[in-house]
């Protein structure tokens, strides 16, 4: 066997607080040369601690208590620190999640790569420069000779991650540890980076330890998959076996909790509870408390490895033929509760009408702050949302999605255009005039960690809106009781509604997990009894299983209270699961708009096509050819002349660079802005 890395019974402990946290507990794995090994798991499972243990870069509080990490047969845990320095960057390299934070902003790219070369290869100046250029060209940085002397902030996010990869490759390592390498990147950029990693791997014949929580990325990249849960590996299999038949109940539930088109109007499977605290002593299976198949033995005996087929093995009592109750054997597709999919009659008048909305931010320069340009964050967006429906606004980061949401609520003043809600024109309303309407429109923010004031108790947070808008009790409570509830009772009812215990109201936000915080944020918005909820990427900071909980909650709320959603996201599978209509945004403008089935099944705009194909697919049978996009999103301060997308478009024509295309009507509910389709049915509404 050409084994490169062998980890045996690794145990890493973090000494924080009173109880030591066993972040990695008895982990064993083997990585062969040239193989991609994916370590999959939710946040807080000990994935990153495993990677840092291999590199021996643990924090000061961390301690490797037992085990061996053998690289080419040598135990790196026994080496003195000085020899470790010769291994790091030379034999093992690492790339991190945030390329923005991983590069030193006061050193040029060339200087930073040069550090690796000096340390490990002792290259002289000219040779080093030549090598740096070679590396940057290898990772696909155009004009490498010039750009190598630039600073990291002059590069875009995707380019920075490329630079990081170049840096990791500089020592020609045999093992590359990639810790969530694409989590911070957009889908189209993610597919570029994953593609690059594959190419580089083939050229250099190195092994990759890929740490991720994204099943899609795993299915695109990995040869071997290991699922990690609460500090240990619970299932290990080759990719094909894993995706064809996940064995452990946890893996199965992870798959079931992924939103997808087929699951529309159904509740997503939810893993109840949270990842257990790693500071406790485990007895029995660590997943038992959350497992739907758990039986008595699971709670008191720790499961051993059971081989299923070939090198597919799982740590679960269900596969121990001696003890497992037969009828309890899990089946791969978990039966789902079918929610009541009420076919609501389409309303005639849209609840919210947005017409030609523009938000421009002036760029000021010089002594007198003269306006020298405009950042056209939103440049003529028109939307219609009908009551009880969900409109998804999709696009890459920086395309102006969030600005649209905030300017609808008048949190950002629009430059032009109008927003009509239920017959009221919101643009230009004064603060006091707007106040009565505030209750009807609410916002759920992206980051549950910054959207709750850390110094206010939950009860104060939830009551704030009620007090400010003078609302006595949210409507959802009047169903249960006729008499108006006191505000404190109303808070209880709200917490109950979003599935949190009533005692939670006396606590502070930091005592809750991300998913729980997002529920509180939703409860806060519901407190004033809104009809339209603008959700700005409400699940993007959360794990898959928690995402499923939030999506279920939103679905229930729509069914029960007839809420209308404007769902801002970049996650196509969430859109497919939740939305009725979809608007695809590119650089401040909507390029395609239509009903969900029309757009997903028959995308017309090349950008929509590229976006949809870039989403990592779990199902390998649908092997659609991926459309590769060149480059990054241009700056909205100086958008390209003509169609904004033409510099990246694989089907660009000369006319594209001349003027912005008008709307092409494909069906009464579906239009796109592209010269590929006939331009005759133009409407002045969408002209710019």
């Amino acid at each position: 066997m050409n084994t490169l890395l062998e980890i045996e019974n690794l145990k890493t402990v973090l000494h924080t607080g009173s109880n030591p946290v066993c972040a990695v507990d008895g982990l064993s794995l083997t990585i062969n040369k040239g193989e991609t090994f994916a370590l999959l798991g939710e946040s807080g499972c000990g994935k990153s601690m495993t990677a840092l243990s291999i590199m021996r870069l643990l924090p000061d509080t961390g301690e490797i208590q037992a085990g061996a990490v053998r690289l080419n047969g040598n135990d790196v845990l026994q080496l003195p620190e000085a020899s470790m320095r010769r291994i790091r960057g030379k034999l093992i390299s690492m790339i991190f999640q945030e390329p923005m934070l991983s590069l030193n902003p006061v050193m040029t790219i060339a200087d930073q790569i040069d550090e690796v070369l000096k340390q490990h290869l002792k290259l002289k100046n000219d040779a080093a420069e030549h090598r740096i250029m070679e590396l940057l060209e290898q990772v696909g940085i155009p004009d490498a000779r010039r750009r190598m002397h630039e600073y990291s902030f002059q590069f875009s996010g995707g380019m920075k991650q490329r630079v990081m990869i170049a840096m990791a490759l500089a020592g020609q390592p045999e093992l590359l540890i990639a810790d969530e390498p694409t989590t911070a990147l957009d889908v189209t950029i993610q597919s570029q980076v994953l593609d690059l990693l594959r190419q580089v791997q083939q050229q250099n014949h190195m092994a990759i330890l890929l740490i991720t929580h994204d099943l899609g990325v795993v299915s695109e990249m990995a040869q071997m998959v290991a699922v990690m849960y609460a500090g240990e590996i619970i299932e290990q299999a080759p990719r094909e076996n894993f995706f064809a038949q996940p064995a452990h109940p946890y893996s199965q539930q992870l798959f079931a909790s992924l939103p997808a088109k087929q699951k529309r109007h159904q509740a997503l499977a939810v893993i109840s509870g949270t990842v257990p605290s790693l500071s406790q002593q485990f007895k029995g299976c660590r997943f038992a408390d959350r497992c739907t198949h758990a039986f008595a033995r699971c709670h008191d005996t720790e499961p051993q490895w059971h081989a299923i087929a070939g090198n597919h093995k799982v740590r679960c009592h269900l596969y121990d033929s001696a003890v497992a109750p037969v009828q309890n054997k899990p089946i791969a597709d978990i039966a789902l509760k079918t929610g009541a999919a009420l076919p609501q009659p389409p309303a005639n008048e849209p609840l919210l009408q947005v017409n030609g909305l523009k938000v421009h931010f002036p760029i000021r320069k010089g002594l007198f702050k003269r306006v020298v340009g405009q950042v056209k964050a939103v440049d003529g967006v028109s939307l219609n949302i009908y009551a009880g429906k969900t409109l998804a606004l999709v696009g890459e980061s920086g395309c102006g999605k969030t600005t649209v949401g905030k300017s609808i609520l008048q949190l950002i003043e629009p430059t032009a255009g109008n927003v009509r809600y239920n017959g009221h024109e919101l643009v230009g309303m004064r603060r006091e005039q707007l106040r009565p309407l505030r209750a009807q429109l609410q916002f759920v923010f992206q980051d549950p960690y910054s959207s709750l004031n850390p110094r206010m108790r939950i009860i104060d947070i939830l009551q704030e809106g009620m007090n400010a808008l003078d609302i006595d009790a949210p409507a959802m409570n009047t169903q249960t009781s006729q008499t108006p509830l006191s505000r404190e009772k109303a808070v209880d009812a709200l917490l109950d509604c979003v599935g949190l215990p009533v005692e939670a109201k006396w606590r502070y936000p930091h005592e809750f997990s991300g998913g729980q915080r997002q529920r509180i944020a939703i409860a806060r918005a519901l407190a004033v009894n809104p009809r339209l909820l603008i959700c700005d990427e409400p699940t993007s900071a959360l794990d898959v299983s928690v995402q499923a909980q939030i999506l279920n909650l939103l679905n229930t709320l729509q069914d029960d209270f007839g809420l209308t959603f404007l769902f801002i996201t970049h996650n196509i599978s969430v859109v497919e699961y939740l939305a009725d209509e979809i608007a695809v945004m590119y650089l401040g403008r909507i390029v395609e708009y239509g009903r969900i089935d029309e757009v997903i099944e028959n995308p017309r705009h090349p950008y929509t096509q590229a976006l949809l194909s870039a989403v990592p697919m779990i199902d390998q049978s649908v092997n659609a050819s991926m459309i590769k996009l060149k480059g990054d999103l241009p700056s909205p301060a100086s958008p390209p002349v003509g169609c904004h997308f033409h510099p990246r478009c694989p089907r660009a024509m000369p006319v594209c660079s001349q003027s912005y295309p008008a709307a092409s009507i494909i069906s009464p509910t579906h239009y796109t802005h592209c010269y590929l389709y006939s331009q005759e049915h133009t409407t002045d509404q969408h002209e710019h």
Partner: protein
Amino acid sequence: MPFKPVILWTDALVFLLVFIVLITIWYVRNNEHLLAPWRRVGHSTSGMSALTVLLVFIAIGFLDTLHFRPALEHTNSQGERVYSVEVLSVLDIVLTPLRTNVEKTYSAPLATHLYTKETVDLPDGSQKRTFARLEFGGAHLQDPDTEHLQDIGWRAITGACLGLLAWCGLHALLCLSMARRSKNNFVQCFQAIWRRTTEIPWHAILITLAFIFILIGAIAMLAVHYHVLGTDKVGQDVLYLSLKSIRIALIIGTLTTLIMLPFALLLGITAGYFRGWVDDVIQYIYTTLNSIPSVLLIAATVLMMQVYIETHPEIFETIAARADIRLLFLCIILGITSWTSLCRLLRGETLKLREMEYIQAAHAFGVSHWRIISRHILPNVMYIVLIATVMDFSGLVLAEAVLSYVGVGVDPSMISFGTMINAARLEMAREPMVWWALLAAFAFMFTLVLCANLFADAVQKALDPRIRTYQYNNRQLNQGLSQSHAATATTQQAAAQSSITPVSADTVHRPPRQS
């Protein structure tokens, strides 16, 4: 009446401050959720020890604030009582021997002879240059050379023992009151304290108190017959001067901060929150104010004040009132000139906070600007205010010293650390050096500022709901989450620290987050 109470301006402000503090305490006690963080202050060992020392200082300062004019023996022509023009405080009465036992000039701590040679007339009519015996220091000794050390040792030990005895009494009282409250017996309470199982760290407070009592006991015994910290140029007891200085230091530290805070808070937060022209105006104001040398500004104002005071002697009944009004104006002027740095900090922090999503959520609810500022922004900048004011406290006490040096500080008749340090300028330059005045000022200021810092640190930790100072045994909803956060936070440090591989040197690991 044997005395006539005098309320000086600064006294009135101190009483007002005490009143506000008492009201706040009463309000907090009636609100469980406000009380909880302050309970956490009570759990901090260093914080409570510091508070104990701080309270001793505050008690001294407060005694020194109760001013009165004692009645004189004779009456005036109408048969009314005449009161002395000298304004005394309760502290002066307590320290009467120290106040009245004035030597001729410098004497070293616990000395029996003067520090300088002078010509004395011997009984036989001849003259001799020698170190003369002190009038009060060690005056009871027949033969200072042989009895001196022994007497000091004996007195110190007796005093310490008496202090310890008093401490034991206090300890017993504490145990008794605890026993009555918790319905445990006396011994159980005693054990609970020293096994450190009580909620409030009484053991730390008691140890601190033991030190204080022993020190006070020993000093009190010695101070009756000696000058424990020596005497200054005009023969005043340095210990007395130091104790009197505490009030001035506390007043300059607190009043100035109180005057400065409204400016800094209001202007800093409005500038950061509203931005636009409001921000421009406020920034211009503090930039302008900052660019004028503050000593110049203070000197000009104080001199103007001085002229006014001298041309209107009829307004002030006593010298103390004159000195006091000068102190008050010094505080006001220091306050007006020193808010800029805190204001700048607050503006920056508010600029950051106003973009937070919870502020935007509040906007989405139509919450008024005033409520957003008071409910969302103010609590989140309080930690800066707390740190800055404590840091400023020592700076202000020193500023007073600098101003006294220039001659525009407190009234020369007033005793302050500033005047003591100012005097030390010459004392340190003379040969042999007079070191005790400066040392005394240094020791007292150091203790005061250190305790203030430690206590502020404990308060800041306790008031931040994100920091846990007290281990909750129950109610841990998601320990796993907080731990994984702690883990990633330390990972960041580790990655930042290790400059070993170039890859890791420039990289920081972050918890997974999709964007």
